[in-house]
């Protein structure tokens, strides 16, 4: 199946490289940003809850896809046809902006990607994704912050620091490098997901509290419905409106001449065990929010868009087969989405593992063939000139064997 995929497994490629080439890469001088007048920016969007990569960028050319993913598989035909990216992959129709950027060679997909984490706990998966360590439990600092910290003192990017968007600082950007905090000007009500989960727990354990909370939530909804539209809170970072709004504000801050050059956002709500939906439905609505965020960054960054790389990552994927409640459970391989004027786009980068039972990871999940850390290392190396040695030791500790994926940046 790999004939449709442009770049083979980067780690396999790395093995093929000569020792000399590795050595040369590791100690290459810093990217000469001043010389070509670039002013690079990197935006990391963490999608919490484990994104279904197979419903985001569907392998519509894979003969086993429709059977496994059932009613929620993307399709090139029908009323909500997926948007073709190449002859094999198509993106969810909720993401027209991403499809347009892809055509303009400003967006790319790394498919069948995963961190080094192979278990199925959100919490541990997010620790690994955001801390950059090989295993869970490291929660003091994140790789993005350590990347800032690793830049030479006086470096413009390091001096301007990072931006954390949202009411709490994502782990990925926590650490000793300076980070600015910003949150949209409203108190997001707790997500409907949280309310539903608490209600579900009460219905099993405490019916009295279930009745009270249900009535309170209903009254709240009615009260909000009566108000003028502008009075409504835009919603939390697990709603399409909230994602768009967060990106809009962040773009303003990042676009400023003296604004931060790296930013971290965290969008919630991707844990789609039940009624996930495919081309339409809950997941599509969230993907629409992410697409809206891409659009707001493109608009808000203006001139700076050309120097910007955005990467959207998640702790792990979901099962390839849909479950009994038309959703998916915790899986492994998924997608990393890249967008921005600095991205060398128009490509789905994957060493496609296939979807036959024997090809699935633990016979359940899309098997990971690309390491998310390789993608992130590649972005950091080419945007900010961090060396493979620093990336392998300090930013992503003990990851020397995971080589930066090159040529992601124009």
């Amino acid at each position, binding site marked *: 199946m790999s004939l449709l995929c442009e770049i083979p497994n980067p780690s396999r490629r790395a093995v093929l490289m000569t020792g000399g080439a590795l050595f040369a890469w590791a100690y290459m001088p810093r990217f000469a940003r001043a010389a070509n007048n670039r002013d690079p920016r990197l935006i990391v969007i963490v999608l*919490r*809850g484990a994104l279904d990569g197979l419903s985001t960028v569907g392998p519509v050319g894979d003969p086993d896809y429709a059977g496994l993913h059932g009613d929620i598989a993307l399709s090139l035909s029908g009323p909500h046809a997926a948007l073709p990216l190449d002859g094999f992959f198509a993106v969810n129709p909720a993401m027209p902006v991403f499809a347009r950027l892809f055509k303009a060679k400003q967006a790319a997909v790394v498919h069948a990607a995963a961190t080094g984490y192979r278990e199925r*706990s*959100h*919490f*541990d998966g*997010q620790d690994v994704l955001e801390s950059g360590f090989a295993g869970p439990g490291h*929660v*003091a600092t994140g790789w993005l*912050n350590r990347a800032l910290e690793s830049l030479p003192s006086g470096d413009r990017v390091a001096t301007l620091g990072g931006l*954390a968007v949202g*009411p*709490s*600082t994502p*782990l990925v950007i*926590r*650490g*000793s*490098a*300076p*980070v*600015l*905090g*910003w*949150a*949209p*000007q*409203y*108190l997001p*009500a*707790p*997500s409907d*997901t*949280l*309310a539903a*989960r*608490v209600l*579900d*727990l009460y219905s*099993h*354990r*405490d*019916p*009295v*509290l279930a009745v*009270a*909370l*249900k*009535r*309170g*939530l209903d*009254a*709240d909804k009615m009260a909000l419905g009566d108000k003028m539209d502008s009075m409504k809170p835009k919603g939390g970072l697990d709603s399409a409106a909230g994602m768009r709004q967060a990106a809009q504000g962040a773009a303003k*801050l990042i676009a400023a001449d003296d604004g931060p050059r790296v930013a971290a956002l*965290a969008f*919630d*709500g*991707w*844990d789609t*065990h039940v009624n996930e939906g495919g081309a339409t439905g809950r997941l599509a609505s969230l993907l629409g929010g992410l697409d809206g965020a891409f659009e707001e960054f493109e608009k808000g960054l203006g001139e700076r868009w050309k120097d910007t790389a955005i990467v959207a990552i998640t702790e792990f994927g979901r099962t390839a087969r849909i479950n009994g409640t038309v959703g998916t459970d915790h899986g492994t391989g998924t997608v990393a989405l890249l967008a921005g004027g600095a991205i060398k786009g128009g490509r789905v980068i994957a060493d496609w593992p296939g979807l036959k039972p024997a090809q699935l990871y633990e016979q359940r999940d899309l098997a990971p063939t690309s390491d998310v850390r390789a993608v992130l290392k590649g972005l950091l190396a080419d945007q900010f000139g961090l060396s493979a040695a620093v990336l392998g030791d300090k930013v992503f500790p003990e990851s020397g064997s995971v080589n930066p994926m090159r040529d992601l940046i124009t």
Partner: protein
Amino acid sequence: MAAPASPTRPDSALVVFNRFGLGARPGDLDKLKGDLRGDPRAYLKAELRQPDIAMIPYDDPAYAGLLGSTAAIQASMAASFQRKLDMQAGTRQATMTNVAAVPPPVAPTMPAVASAKPAAVAEMLAKPTTLAAGATKPVAQPPAAPPAPPPIEARLFQAEAQARFDKALKADVGFVERLVYFWSNHFCVSVAKDNIIRASAGAFEREAIRPFVLGRFADMLLAVEHHPAMLFYLDNQQSVGPKSRAGNNGKRGLNENLAREILELHTLGVGGGYSQADVTSFARILTGWMIGGRDGHLGEPGNFAFNANAHEPSDEVLLGKTYPAGGQGQAEAALNDIARHPATAQHIATQIARHFIADNPPPAAVTRLAKVFVKSDGDLRAMAATLIDMPEAWSTPLAKMRSPFDFIVAIRRAAGPDPANNPNQSLGWLNALGEPLWQPPGPNGFADEADAWASAEGMKIRLDIAWQAARQVKNIGNPDDTLNAVIGPSASPETRLAIAQAESKQQGLAMLLMAPEFQRR
């Protein structure tokens, strides 16, 4: 309403930390297992033995902002007088501007009294939280007019609130703190009454409640009814004996408020066997119990003062006993007797059992507590120990709701204080949940039944708060671990699963803070 789902005997760790205490902090459950070899009763009693356990340490520089009630009331009186002068000056200048060629100096603005209004609460809740974690520095909010320096009453209130929250977070189990809140609510005053109470409510608790929670009920009663905050709150300041020297002109007369509430709420209880004649008689006995005014005529301003001119100079019959005329001592004698009345024992025993065991307390538990009250001459330490030893305290299902204050404290203990360690957010949450600090709806205090707090609106707001709190936690740990640390092995399988399946740590922590095991006590 119905009891919660689990009819089984509650886990003893939850009885210690939820029923008796303020919620476990990570590590507390291990201490219960380790230090005291799993003897939960001994663990609770250990707190009763710690010297000065109920007191706020005045010599701690952190509490330099606290004033005694007399000084606080003096400051409030002075500020109120100054505001009056400023207002008059402002009015005069406003009338002069027509003729003055030179603009007059700007009159100082009258400071607004900070009181909990629904709009202010909504605004507090709606305010975006700025990040203050670690290297994260908050982006300045859009520039607003610099706020006027708060009036002295608001500053004192804030310092007292800070001290109360600090104490709650540092408490080991928090049983003694829970006793403080119980008695403070039993003998409540309200800051909504007047700035004088806003300035002195915290001092009232420190002076009239804390020193006595493990002492004698009669001593607490005397301290409370002597206290200027109580005398002011229940209008005894206004009360004048009709036959007293001050009452002879007929302009001012008797006010029964304090006398009625002492009998109805503080001691005997409704149906405690007193009549209207007793109330009136007791009111006459209490005349002259006042606060020294700003002018200093009665004694030190802001302090308790006995005004012999306002005191009814006659013998009075109360509950069948005659109290001979005798100035201030007449009421003291009456209070000493009422404190030991069998109806008082029954009333206090019922309230304590309702607070710590169940809305409808087991009659045997009430009877036992009442007996101890009588036998020990109102020894509140003996009452607390009895409560700990009572089988009903360990077998009754955890069906009560944590009060808003207990809920917020439990959140802070489980998840860590907010980064700024500033009481304002907690105070805002308390307002939103309908239990504004030291501001009960009436002299009967805040409700103590589960239904009062498990309301529709209340639960929705608890959800909002749980979510807000969870998102603020810096370096949030694994919520499964937090569940084990603050609820322990008795967490229900459903709760355990719901938290394990949360899609983020924040969501998992919010689920924990909303779990029945966290809400109920």
